[in-house]
């Protein structure tokens, strides 16, 4: 008998599972740019970001996810950045945010 489609599906778990995630890429990124780990999540970068004001791009969140080993989609997200450098003028931790975009793209490009 053909299976009946009741419209149910299995949701993908949204949990960030640090046991399952491979933090190797994240470690490599942080080794090259340890300053990225000093992010305090203030959101100035995202607030100033033109791309973020017009699209769903959230620079702060993307690199936070990368640091937790959540790489899927990060490269594509970072492609929305126009490299204008506004965020770098604001970051209170002095992080070279534009450099972060370049680094993540370089490290995850083959992902």
């Amino acid at each position, binding site marked *: 008998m053909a299976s009946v489609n009741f419209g149910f599906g299995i949701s993908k778990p949204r*949990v*960030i*599972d640090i046991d399952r995630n491979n933090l190797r890429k994240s470690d490599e990124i942080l080794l090259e740019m340890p300053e990225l780990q*000093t992010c*305090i999540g203030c959101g100035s970068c995202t607030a100033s970001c033109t791309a973020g004001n017009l699209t769903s791009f959230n620079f*702060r969140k993307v690199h936070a996810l990368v640091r*937790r080993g959540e790489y899927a989609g990060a490269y594509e997200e970072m492609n929305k950045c126009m490299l204008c450098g506004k965020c770098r003028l604001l970051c209170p931790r002095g992080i070279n945010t534009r450099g972060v975009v370049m680094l993540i793209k370089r490290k995850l490009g083959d992902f």
Partner: protein
Amino acid sequence: MRARKVVIIGGGVAGMQTALRLRALGEEPIIIEREAQLGGKVRNWYLLFPTFIPSADVVEPLMRAVKEQGIEVHLGCEVVQFDNHRVELADGERIDCDAVALCSGSTIFDARLKEEYGYGIYDNVYTSVDIERMMAEGRMPERSPRRVAILHCVGSRDEKVCQRHCSKVCCITGVKQAIELKKLYPKADVFNFYMDIRMFGPGYEELYHTAQRNYNVHFVRGRISEASPLMDGCIQIKAEDTLTGRPLRMSVDMLILLVGMRANDDNVRFAESAGLRLADSGFMRAADLFAGNVRSSREGIFYAGTITAPKSIGEVLNEGVVVADSIVDYLNKQEG
């Protein structure tokens, strides 16, 4: 002018500093300490934030000075009640005096009350106080843990355990212990779970930055909701990584709870016997929070140290000086 007798209840850093300053001003301080030794809690700490000096470097010079100055010290004596002219000990002895400085400190929150974190149930759940002791005694596990979680605000800022206040020193203690762990176990991943990071003192924010920048300590904004054991003996923890808006979980080999400072149980009794006022937190309420922060609402009764609120050692030591000056000022006025 005769030296006036001032009883100091508690011989921690606050009590010792107060006594030394009173002696320097020509008065006669008497320290009453419940334990068999002076020093209070600081004696139990290993290296102190923010400079990583041994706690003995602070406590021992104070103890030595108390001895050299010939200050009267009663050890193993507990004060059960007092007013501004008389202090009563547990053995019934009474000591008459001209003023009292209450320096009996605070109490460490009992982590077992937060049952969801499994302290006292699972072997690999520790408090920050345990870690200080284990580090001091060289009893840290020999094998490097793979992953360690440090949880902030245990028994502070939590209505569920009737502790609304912030314990102030635990954030920086968490940063300090994270660095110590990374020095001991460079390969381990250390995660600090916080609600807010409060770096109030000189050099503290810089130390937080160092923990992130030089030691790769991970900071996750989110409170751990529960800890549960796994088959392999690890602890599984769950939290929300609020900065990404996603639930997060991981297994850890060690879970460290940054326990807060809460008000002493004695405070209620002391407040009743001496007619003092308590703050909502249960700590003693100072006359005001500006120029009168070492005075109580009663004449002749003064406060120094963590009896009024959580504080760092430096702040406590400053209060010891200020309270002695306030006491002398009061005594001089009394004698007209």
